[in-house]
């Protein structure tokens, strides 16, 4: 994932689960916000860059390195926001220049990605940036810290590191980070991003529609999952009820003979099927019916034993549900 300079935080670690993207964007837009909003999820990070309330850039980067921008990024953000409850939102206010740099960083072409600094001939690389008159940014980072050096036509524009509010001219922090064990670099070239700064993705993309579609899809998915779960539960209960019905029949048949199977079938049928065994009132009616019939076939003593056995079995099965 991108490790971006944090700038001046407006919100940090705000739970995404309760937020609605159109409302968040509207709020940042109407406030003429300049900076970036980073939506961090377990599987991906989406960064939205704002300049004076306009959404000038959107980048969706997955854990595996896959990247999407623009509409795809916003669509992915909507789906992630409505589909997960674990995401967080961080909003950092930046100066206009820094915002432009971040925008360039997000939209630029990747030349190096997560390259171990110790494996790179950094001197030769810097010379190449100068000789090729490359415009872009070089990001040097560890797991904890990050610094970015911006270039224009091969000349460094400035340095940016965590906690900065603006571009600095001193390279000392960058050198410190580059000297840390495990430091890596990313190199991005920019293709003249100025024209992109005039864009407002919110004017091109109907975020409300995307959001509503995502919500509807999510609801549909929830319904499908619920239906599948209910069906599974129904089958599970039906299986247990069949098992209980067999146990009841076995008990009655053992006491009154094979005619007992018919008695149980008839009494269950009268109470609306074996699901009646789940309901206390219907169980009482069912047992009364079985008792009335069995009374014609077996002794009072056997009847008492059988009824106790039936009650125990049904109660045990119900408590097991």
């Amino acid at each position, binding site marked *: 994932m991108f490790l971006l300079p944090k700038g001046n935080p407006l919100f940090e670690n705000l739970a995404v689960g309760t937020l609605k993207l159109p409302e968040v964007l509207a709020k940042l837009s109407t406030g003429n916000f300049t900076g970036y909003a980073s939506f961090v999820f377990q599987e991906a990070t989406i960064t939205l860059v704002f300049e004076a309330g306009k959404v000038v850039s959107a980048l969706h980067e997955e854990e595996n390195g896959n990247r999407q921008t623009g509409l795809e990024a916003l669509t992915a953000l909507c789906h992630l926001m409505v589909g997960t409850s674990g995401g967080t939102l961080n909003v950092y206010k930046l100066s206009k220049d820094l915002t432009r740099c971040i925008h360039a960083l997000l939209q630029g072409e990747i030349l190096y990605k997560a390259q171990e600094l110790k494996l790179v001939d950094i001197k030769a690389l810097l010379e190449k940036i100068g000789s090729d008159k490359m415009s872009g940014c070089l990001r040097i980072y560890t797991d904890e810290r990050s610094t970015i050096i911006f270039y224009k036509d091969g000349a460094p524009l400035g340095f940016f590191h965590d906690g900065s509010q603006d571009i600095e001219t001193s390279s000392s922090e960058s050198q410190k980070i580059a000297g840390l064990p495990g430091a890596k670099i990313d190199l991005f070239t920019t293709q003249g991003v100025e024209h992109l700064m005039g864009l407002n993705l919110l004017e091109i993309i109907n975020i409300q529609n995307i959001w509503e579609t995502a919500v509807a899809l999510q609801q549909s998915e929830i319904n499908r999952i619920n239906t599948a779960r209910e069906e599974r539960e129904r089958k599970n209960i039906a299986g247990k009820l069949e098992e209980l019905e067999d146990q009841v029949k076995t008990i009655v048949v053992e006491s*009154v*003979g*094979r*005619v007992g199977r018919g*008695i149980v079938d008839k009494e269950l049928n009268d109470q609306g099927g074996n699901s009646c065994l789940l309901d206390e009132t219907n169980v009482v009616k069912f047992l009364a019916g079985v008792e009335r019939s069995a009374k*014609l*076939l077996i*002794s009072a*003593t056997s009847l008492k034993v059988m009824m106790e056995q039936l009650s125990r079995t049904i109660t045990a099965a119900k408590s097991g549900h």
Partner: protein
Amino acid sequence: MEQFIELLSQVNTFELVRTIFWGLAGAISFYFSIGNARVWTSISIGFFLIFLGQAYAINPWVHYYKLSAFHNIVGTVAIVVITHGFLEYYVFCRTFEISGKKVAVYLFSLLILVAGGLFLFVNPTPSPNTIRNFKIVENAIWVFLSIMNLELIRKIYVAIKDSPISKGFIAFGIVFFLIFLWRGSELYLQIFQWDKDWQDIIAVMTDEVSDIDKFADRVQISTLVNRYAGFLSSLSVGGTFIYIYRLLR
């Protein structure tokens, strides 16, 4: 009381013993009907009514022909109620449906008996020949319904043969076989006019002759079957109800 003692002295001892045994069977079956399911009520009430039907032998007012005919009506109602009970039991074995109330059986039996009494009350006093006709009708119904009950009992037994009570239905089968012999033999004698009642009737008629002497063996065998099958059926009914009572206790 004197009239009753005089009547007892006139009654055939065998017939008296048989009536007493039917009394015992009736008492046992009536006792059995109390606190049991409706199907048993029909069956046991029916067997109790057999005793009332047979009780003419100890009835001091039996020389009133209307009362004598009433005994035959009671006997007929008895087998109808019994058959109704077995039919209900058979329906239960096939559908496991138990419907109706016991009181309906008591009321129905009482209503039929009252209707029978009214029928006799509004009609002329029956002659000895009419009384004999009553007996023929009663025996014919008994024979027909005994056969039907034997078939019902067979079907019930097949349906519940692994149930504890199934052996009780074998006992009922024996009861109805004996009843069939008892009533069938009497009907046989009546159909061929070899019965005692007919012989008494033609004794006072000048132009009637009987061929009873030509078939003395058949008449003797039928009379014996009638006496002993009737006696044994009363014993078997009492025994069967005691047996079933023990099975269901």
